[in-house]
C-alpha cells in the first residue's frame, strides 16, 4: 500500500473536531432524555393510574455533590500543568463516587418508602431514568480515572488539555442533565 502523503498544511479548526463530535452527541443525549421526560409527562397525564412518589433527600444531596464536582473539574482543567491539577482531579473522582453512592442510597430509600422498582410505572420511571443517567455518569468516571492516570505533569500539556477539556464539557453536560432531572421530578412530576 502506498504511503500516506499529507502535504497540505493541517487545517485550522475553530472547534476541535473531537469536541465537535461531543457537541453533536450531546444533541443525541438531549433527545434520549427528552424521550424519557415526555414519556413521563404522558404517564403523569393518566391520572387514573398515577401514584405520587416521594423524591428522597439523597437525590437532593447528590444534586449538590454533582454541582460541586463540576466546579472541581473546572479547577482541575484550569490548573493543568501545575501541582494543583492532581489535587482537583482526585477531589472530582471522590465526589463522582460519592454521587454514585448517593444515587444507590436514593434507590434504596425509594424501595423502603414503598416504591419498588417492579410496580406502578409512576415509580419505576424514577429508577429507570436515573439509572440511564447513571450509566452515562459511570462512563464519565471511567474517563476521569483514565485521564488522571495518563497525566504526566508538564509534558504534552497542550494536547492533554484538549482531551481534558472535552471530558470537562461532558462532565458539565451530564451534571446539568441530572440537575434538570431532579428539578423535573421534584417540582413538575411528583408534586
Amino acid at each position, binding site marked *: 500500500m*502506498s504511503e500516506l502523503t499529507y502535504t497540505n498544511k493541517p487545517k485550522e479548526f475553530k472547534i476541535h473536531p473531537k469536541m465537535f*463530535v461531543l457537541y453533536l452527541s450531546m444533541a*443525541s443525549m438531549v433527545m434520549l432524555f427528552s*424521550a424519557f421526560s415526555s414519556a413521563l409527562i404522558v*404517564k403523569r397525564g393518566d391520572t387514573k*393510574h398515577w401514584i405520587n412518589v416521594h423524591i428522597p433527600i439523597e437525590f437532593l444531596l447528590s444534586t449538590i455533590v454533582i454541582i460541586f464536582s463540576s466546579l472541581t473539574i473546572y479547577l482541575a482543567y484550569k490548573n493543568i500543568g501545575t501541582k494543583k491539577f492532581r489535587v482537583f482531579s482526585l477531589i472530582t473522582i471522590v465526589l463522582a463516587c460519592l454521587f454514585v453512592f448517593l444515587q444507590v442510597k436514593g434507590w434504596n430509600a425509594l424501595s423502603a418508602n414503598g416504591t419498588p422498582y417492579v410496580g*406502578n410505572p409512576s415509580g*419505576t420511571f424514577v429508577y429507570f431514568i436515573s439509572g440511564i443517567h447513571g450509566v452515562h455518569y459511570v462512563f464519565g468516571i471511567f474517563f476521569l480515572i483514565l485521564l488522571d492516570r495518563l497525566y504526566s505533569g508538564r509534558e504534552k500539556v497542550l494536547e492533554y488539555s484538549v482531551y481534558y477539556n472535552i471530558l470537562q464539557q461532558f462532565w458539565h453536560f451530564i451534571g446539568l442533565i441530572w440537575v434538570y432531572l431532579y428539578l423535573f421530578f421534584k417540582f413538575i412530576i411528583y408534586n
Partner: protein
Amino acid sequence: MDHAHHEETFLTKYIFSQDHKMIARQFLFTGIFWSIVGALMSVLMRIQLGWPTETFPFLETLLGKWAEGGRISSEFYYSLVTMHGTILVFFVLTAGLSGTFANLLIPYQIGARDMASPFMNMLSYWFFFLAGLIMLTSLFVQTGAASGGWTMYPPINGMRNTAVNLGSGLGTDLWITSMTFFIVSSLLGGLNYIATIINLRTKGMTMWRMPLPVWALLFTAILGVLAFPPLLSAALLLESDRLFDTSFFLSDIVLGGKLQDYKGGSPILFQHLFWFLGHPEVYIIILPAFGIVSEVLSVNSRKPVFGYRAMVYALGAIVLLGFLVWAHHMYVTGMNPFVGSIFVLFTLLIAVPSAVKVFNWLTTIWKGNLRLTPAMMFSLGFVSLFISGGLTGLFLGNSALDIPLHDTYFVVAHFHIVMGVAAFFAMFAGVYHWFPKMFNRHINDTLGYVHFYMTIISAYAIFLPMHFMLSVPRRYYMYSNFQTFNLFDDLSKFISVFAIISFAAQILFVVNIVYSALKGREVTEETKNPWNSNTLEWTTPVEQIHGNWPGDLPEVHRWPYDYSTGFDDKDWIPQTTPLREGEESHG
C-alpha cells in the same frame, strides 16, 4: 487524526480497516448478504400466501420443524413477517444504503482524506456487524425468531410469554439486543458523517458547492442522531418490562383467565416513542436515495440539477416536518380527533417538499441529452415509483380515509412502493454509477438492463394489484378461511409468481457484481471518469490509496453541476476547473 505512515496487514486492510472506501465495501457486502436473506423470507411468505393449501416437501427439508409436512407453520410465518421487515428496513435500507454511500461519497465528494474519526467509523461498522450476528442467531433459537412485527408493539412483545406467541421468548430478547447495537452503530456513524461534512471540506468546497448526495447524507445523519435515541429509550423500557416484569407498557392483562400483575402502563406510549423514530426512519431511508438519484439524473441528462437550492431547502423541510407527523401511524389508537387533524395537516404539508423534489427531477431531465445507462434507468424508475407511492400517501395521510385503510394491503402497497422498492432502485443506481470507482472495473451493462426491466416489471406487478386488496388485512397467515377473500386467490398467485421473478433478478444482479468485480473490463487512467462527471471522486487516481489523493487535496472552484454550460467545448466542467472569464459562479 493520525496522519503517520503505518504498515498495513491483511487484518488492518480488509477486516479492521479504517479507510472509508474499504468500510463502504464492507457495508455494501453486508447489506447484500442481508438483502438476500430478507428477500428469501419474502419469497417464503409469498409461497404461503399464493398456495396456502398446497404442500412443498422441499420446504420441510429446508426448514425442518418450521415447515412440517411441507407447509410453513403459522408461528414461522409471523417470524418471517417480522424479520423481513426488520432486516430490510434497518439492515439493508438504513445501514446498507447509508453505510455504503456515506462512507464512499462523503470523503470523496468533499475532498477529504477520510472521515473525521476513522476509528469511530470502523466501530460503526463492527457494531452493525455484531447487531447482524445477534439477529442471525435469533433465527436459530428453539422458540424461533421474534414474531410480533417489526414495530415491536406491546403488549404482545412486552412479555416473555411463549404460550401466547412463540417468538416472544428469547427471539424477541435477541431482537431488542441486536437493535440496541444497531442504534449505537447508527449514532457513531451519523455523528462522524456530520463532523466530517462540517469540518473537513477541501479548499473552495463551500456548503453551497456540495454535491446533492452529500447534502442528503448530512440531513440523513441529522435525522438519525436525533431520532434514534427515542427508539433506544423505547427498546430499553420494553426490555425492562420483559425481563423484570415492570409495567411501562402493560396494564390489566388477562392470560388464560388469570389477571396478571401488570398495572398502570400504556401500550400506546410505546407507539409514540416508536413512531417518533419510525417516521423519521422512513426519511432516513429515502433521503440518501434522493441524493443519489439527483446526482445520477443530472450527470446522465448532461444538465445542471434544476433548483439546486430548492432541493436542499426541500430536504431541510422534510427533516423538520418529519419530526411532526409520527402520529399518522396511530390514527386508530383512539386519539382525540382534534389532535389527529393536526397530524393530518403536517402530514399533508410534507407532501409539498416531496413534490418540489419530484418537480425538480422531472425538470432536470426535461430536454436533457439523456444517456440511458443502467444507473440512469434505475433513477428514472425511482422517480416513477416515488410518484406512484407518494400519491397513496396522500390518501393515508387523511385520518378519515386511513381509519378504514389502516393495516390493509393498501398500506403494504404504499410503503413498499414509496420506500421499499424506490429506495432499492436508488441503491441499484448508486451501485451501477459508482461501481467503477469502488472496484476499478466496469460492471456489465447488458446484465444491468436485464436486471432493470425484470425488476421494474415485477415490482409493479407485485404492488399495483395490492391497491385493490384494500379490504384485506395485512400480516395474515392464511386467507382461505375467509369466504370474501377467495376473490383474490388468483391475484395472490399472480403476485407470488412475480415475487419469485423479482428475486431471480436480484440474484442476477449479485452475480453481476461479483463477476464484474473480479473479471470486468478494467478501469484505466483514461476511462477512470466514465460518466464525464464533475465531482471530485473521479479525480482520484485509479490505484486507490489511503488518503485518496496523492499530494495536495484538490481545490474547488465551482459547484458540481456545470453540464452543457457552453463555456467549454466539452459538455462538462469539473469542480476543480477555475472559472472562465465571463462565467458566473453558482454558490
